[in-house]
């Protein structure tokens, strides 16, 4: 068994709350076993109206190509729904996850930030 969790995080305090912004926090191993949960949670938020998604992967210990595929799928879904963006947060210390993103070559689709503040600032000012 591996360990995985994903939760909504209410700590958007200090940021202008907007119904179309959602912050999700994941941790543990995101593999082919866990990626359906990730897909479902992202789809739920998009279905619920979120168009600017922030996904904090700082506490993720393992990420595979199926998880990257899920994130790309979420971006495609946002485009189909008329536009939106997905920003991934990963702390500089989490080199393993950052490296997989670097090799996967998805930087044109998914913005990678080192902190939630950086991601939220980008999302709330770039519109």
């Amino acid at each position, binding site marked *: 068994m591996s360990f995985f969790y994903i939760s909504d995080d209410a700590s958007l305090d200090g940021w202008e709350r907007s119904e179309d912004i959602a912050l999700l926090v994941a941790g543990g191993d995101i593999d082919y076993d866990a990626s359906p949960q990730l897909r479902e949670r992202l789809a739920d938020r998009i279905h619920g109206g979120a168009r600017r998604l922030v996904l904090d992967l700082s506490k993720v210990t393992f990420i595979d190509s199926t998880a990257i595929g899920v994130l790309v799928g979420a971006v495609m879904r946002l485009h189909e729904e008329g536009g939106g963006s997905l920003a991934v947060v990963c702390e500089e210390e989490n080199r393993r996850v950052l490296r*997989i993103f670097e090799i996967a070559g998805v930087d044109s689709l998914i913005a990678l930030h080192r902190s939630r503040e950086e991601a939220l600032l980008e999302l709330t000012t770039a519109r």
Partner: protein
Amino acid sequence: MRATVEQAHPSRARSELRLPAQPSELARARRYAHEAAAAFGLDEERCYEVVFAVNEAVTNAIRHGRPDEQGCIELSACSDGERLTLIVCDHGTFVPPAAVEGGPSCEGGRGFPLMAGLMDTVELHTLPGCTTVCLSKVRM
């Protein structure tokens, strides 16, 4: 097919793990890969590269391959002192993945490029009803 693999990688140390072809078994595959890489003497970063590549190959075997009559695929590790090779074997007939030819917006097709980016060599041996992926790291 296994004989072919063993000829290609004459081994001094070899271990095998039969694994139910279920997503919930991926964590066990990763632990096995980590133990093999650590026993070979790789540092943590290179162990992680092996773990990542093995996870991708086993995921492919579970998703696209075919298990044996008992519902299992096979994972093995061998080393000849200078080279560690992890071998993932299933009974499916390999169909080339829809590579990321559609560009970065494709959801799939990233497994092999990622494996190749993290391992020294990635070999795919295909026969009807037998697909074997050999992932190697050379001792630095």
